[in-house]
């Protein structure tokens, strides 16, 4: 008997939780705020669902209710993606080491 594809997805899910668990424990506490903003940005990968929803159907009926929700989701996710990655970048740029040679 063939294995249901759902089981494969479930395996990916469970294994990813474990990866997340070990990777996040090794994040240094001083970078916990950037961790939150970057996880925020990457969870907006939900935009892929929004793109599929928005572009569905033919062009005459591009403003179906379902498509409109897709476009709105694209808008929200885009705010998050750009905002999240850029603010993380901005924060990380501030973390500096002690300068050894004083000017």
């Amino acid at each position, binding site marked *: 008997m063939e294995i249901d594809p*759902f089981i494969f997805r479930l395996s990916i899910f469970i294994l990813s939780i474990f990866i997340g668990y070990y990777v996040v424990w090794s994040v240094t506490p001083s970078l916990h705020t950037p961790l939150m903003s*970057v996880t925020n940005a*990457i*969870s907006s*990968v939900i935009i892929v669902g929004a793109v599929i929803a928005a572009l569905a159907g033919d062009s005459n009926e591009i403003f179906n209710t*379902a498509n409109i929700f897709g476009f709105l*989701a694209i808008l929200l996710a*885009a705010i998050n993606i750009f*905002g999240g990655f850029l603010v993380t970048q901005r924060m990380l740029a501030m973390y*500096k080491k002690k300068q050894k040679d004083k000017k």
Partner: protein
Amino acid sequence: MISTNLLAVFYLISGVLFILALRGLSSPETSRRGNLYGIIGMALAIGVTILSVGNFSYGFLYLIIFLAIGGSIGAFIAFKIPMTAMPELVAGFHSLVGLAAVFVAISAFLNPTVFNLGIPGAIKIASLIEMSLGAAIGAITFTGSIIAFLKLRGIMSGSPIIFFGQHYLNLLLGILLVILIFYLCKTQTDIWFWTIVVISLLVGVLLIIPIGGADMPVVISMLNSYSGWAAAGIGFTLENSALIITGALVGSSGAILSYIMCKGMNRSFLNVILGGWGAEQSSSSTSSKEQKPVKNGNADDAAFLMKNASSVIIVPGYGMAVAQAQHALREMVDALKKNGVKVSYAIHPVAGRMPGHMNVLLAEANVPYDEVFELEEINNDFANCDVAYVIGANDVTNPVAKSDPKSPIFGMPVLDVEKSKSVLFVKRSLSPGYAGIDNDLFYRDNTLMLFADAKKMTEEIVKNL
């Protein structure tokens, strides 16, 4: 344009890049490259999705427009936001992820054929369960984050809102959600789906209102986790591995942060979620503390003490963020270093309003990160330190947590500030901190209270150095 298998491979690559992005955060040096991996992963996921749909007509044009508008808003916020407002920003962003998840779920429900989930009225049962879960968690994340945002921003009072039977109501609504999902699967009727969304929106509000301001680190981490589970739920619906991987990563990340924050307060997760800490305590602690003597100092005394010290440890807290005192603090430390004083910073895990809040503020003020230490790393050093400068922290320094089993904060890990030769405590008044209990440290012989705004006091000390 792209075969389904190839698409899946690209999503897998995105997922791996996201893992590397989080992995990079294990040290500040590698973190910037990590962020770049994250950006590449995201661009890849969006790019291949657009190619796979291959609809380059009007729809594509609108997609670019919406992407550009959203992107500009996001970029604008990212560049303009002051570092002190980071907790609100993160809460606000969480609400957007939540709402986006709800929208995608609605879209999938209305037009299931695009996602190969069946046809309207006959959607696969498994998909229905997955999309209702995604929508429900998304909706809870959305309204919950908005409440958290309002509390952090100060638009809504930070004190817990509690009413009779609150927890039973939440429990009831939770059970109702399960029943509704069951009916949705049975009847496939729209009305159940919309009811699930509306009730989940309500649950989000009810879950967060009983939680007080200083518990926000736990709340933000928890909502972070929820936004991940919502994404994973949608990932199962859309059979998309990038979403499933990311959802799981973010979900576990938020859960770990919540755990760390709870441990930092020695409270169980359930205890925080059920809320209302301090509400029952505040009435009893207000009496009988007025009589105890307090040593009152000024900037001159403080400057003298610190100038003649050989080592100083700085303990920042939320008050520093409120007063925006981090730059003044950095000036003070520079002046001390010129006098040959060794200075380090001690950060309690729950200092501030979100995990790592203090570290970001100090980094903003150009404090090198290798002068900043976590509780376990530095706690033994207080015994050999001449002056501890407590600026805007309170409960996390209270020695009562170690000595009085009756205290509500007993067992909470605290910074051993009282072990240093002298303690300078910058505070506006003697009022108790968030936990609603008096800080024993105020009345110790080696404590000098500096009653002033954190920023003004620090600036004055700089003048006197």
